[in-house]
């Protein structure tokens, strides 16, 4: 992507000639992409196109899979997160993640949000309480759960669980939040809440969202990247991708001619 597309926005993350292999099978081919700071970047494309794999490269979650190989660089504030001396655990503190299927831990609502804080330790009880409250507010969940923080998180509805997972990610104060189809298992109202939340979050966080839902990409994102068969076909401002894409294949996909 050339910088004219970015309108001089600061680049938070970027990949340089990123190649990714499951064993010998390439899943990502030569991907160079820039993620502007405090914007929402959507990744779209048909199933198996590599968008989730790409997302999971950005916080090194793919490291947990055996037999993978990564070539190229991913820069977070100009630092290569795949440099041999970089600890993936530290990367994940700065680059949070929300999964497709909400995964609250079978603990209380409070302990779910506090989990990340307890990892690093060194917080007083008051600090943790304070941060839990702020994070739940940040995830637009506080009003619904403030009177039952000690209840099990498993009792929340699907949409609430997903916002709890967002609150849990916010609590460790990441700089980037990765979202892997965060609303795909939710009903329209819960989806709308998540989308509204994304609009609020982007004021403070860089957000990258994988979605199958093109209307969703059009609604929530500032930039959109189209992936196809492990390649990044095109990335541009979202309005441009959806109204006047530069590549024929992008146009075919966003107009529903295949996918």
């Amino acid at each position, binding site marked *: 992507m050339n910088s004219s597309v970015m309108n001089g926005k600061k680049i938070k993350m970027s990949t340089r000639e990123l190649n990714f292999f499951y064993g010998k099978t390439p899943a990502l081919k030569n991907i160079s992409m820039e993620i502007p700071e405090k914007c929402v970047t959507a990744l779209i494309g048909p199933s198996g196109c590599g968008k989730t794999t790409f997302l999971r490269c950005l916080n090194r979650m793919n490291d947990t899979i*055996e037999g993978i190989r990564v070539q190229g660089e991913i820069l977070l504030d100009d630092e290569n997160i795949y440099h041999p001396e970089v600890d993936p*655990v530290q990367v994940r503190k700065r680059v949070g993640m929300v999964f497709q299927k909400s*995964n609250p*831990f*079978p603990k209380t609502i409070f302990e779910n949000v506090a*989990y*990340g804080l307890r*990892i690093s330790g060194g917080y007083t009880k008051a600090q943790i309480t304070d941060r839990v409250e702020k994070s739940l507010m940040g995830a637009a969940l506080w009003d619904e759960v403030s009177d039952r923080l000690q209840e099990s998180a498993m009792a929340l509805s699907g949409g609430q669980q997903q916002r709890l997972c967002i609150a*849990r990610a916010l609590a*460790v104060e990441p700089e980037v939040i990765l979202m892997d189809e965060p609303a795909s298992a939710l009903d329209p109202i819960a989806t709308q809440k998540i989308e509204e939340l994304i609009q609020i979050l982007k004021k403070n966080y860089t957000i990258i969202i994988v979605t199958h839902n093109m209307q969703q990409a059009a609604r929530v994102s500032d930039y959109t990247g189209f992936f196809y068969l492990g390649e990044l076909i095109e990335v541009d401002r979202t309005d441009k991708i959806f109204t006047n894409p530069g590549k024929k294949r992008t146009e075919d996909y966003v107009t529903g001619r295949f996918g």
Partner: protein
Amino acid sequence: MKKKWAERIGFFLLSSAAVLVLFFLGIIIWDIFSKGVGVISWQFLTQAPREGMTEGGIFPAILGTFLVSLITVLFAVPLGMFAAIYLNEYALPGRTTRLIRLAIRNLSGVPSIVYGLFGVVLFVQMMKLGTSVLSAGLTLGLLTLPWTITASEEALKTVPKSYREGALALGATKWYAIRTNVLPYAIPGMLTGVILGLARAAGETAPILFTGAAFFLPHLPKSIFDQFMALPYHLYILATQHHDIAKVRPIAYGTALVLLCLILLLSTSAIYFRYRYRQRMRS
């Protein structure tokens, strides 16, 4: 019409096979209970055998079995749990891992007398622990290891992958994620396997025969390096080795009943743990 008959006969055969199993279990329990319950008393449970085991109780055997079981648990639980954590969470799939799993599966098929002889060589002689509570407990620990490891692994497998990933995504190290977000949910399941393994170990005679169990001791074991009396061995002696078998028969039945109750208690608590655990995972 013909088909229906075939179905009925099939059903009858299958159900009678199931009922027959229950029938045998019922007979065993009834036989032991009816012949053993007469001698059960507070004195029987709390006193030592007297007059060449024809009088008195079986307290030393109960205590011995309890102490040996304690050693078994202390040895087999950490070892089995750690091995299971390694196999399930860390080991890369490959030849070595396959070999380890194969070895574990084969261990559960090794006859208990072989464990006994192995215990003599390793613990009693090589490690110079003597015939003692410790040697016998360690030997029984080896015997329960396959159970402990397999059950622990199964328990770890029931914890969803998303708990691990969720913790990692928040910046947890792998060990932190396992410790705080996997083990707490796996431990009740692990416990179930441990208890079932222990229930089997507590009833074993062959592994303790050469490693520490005594025919008769005039005193209780003073330390874990002492010999001890144990319920299954005591029962074996009363049933086959005593000079006046007819006279001690009721005591033998009483001993069998106590042993059976002990094992039923262990199994029931395992079932209870598993039930509680499933309830909790569901909510």
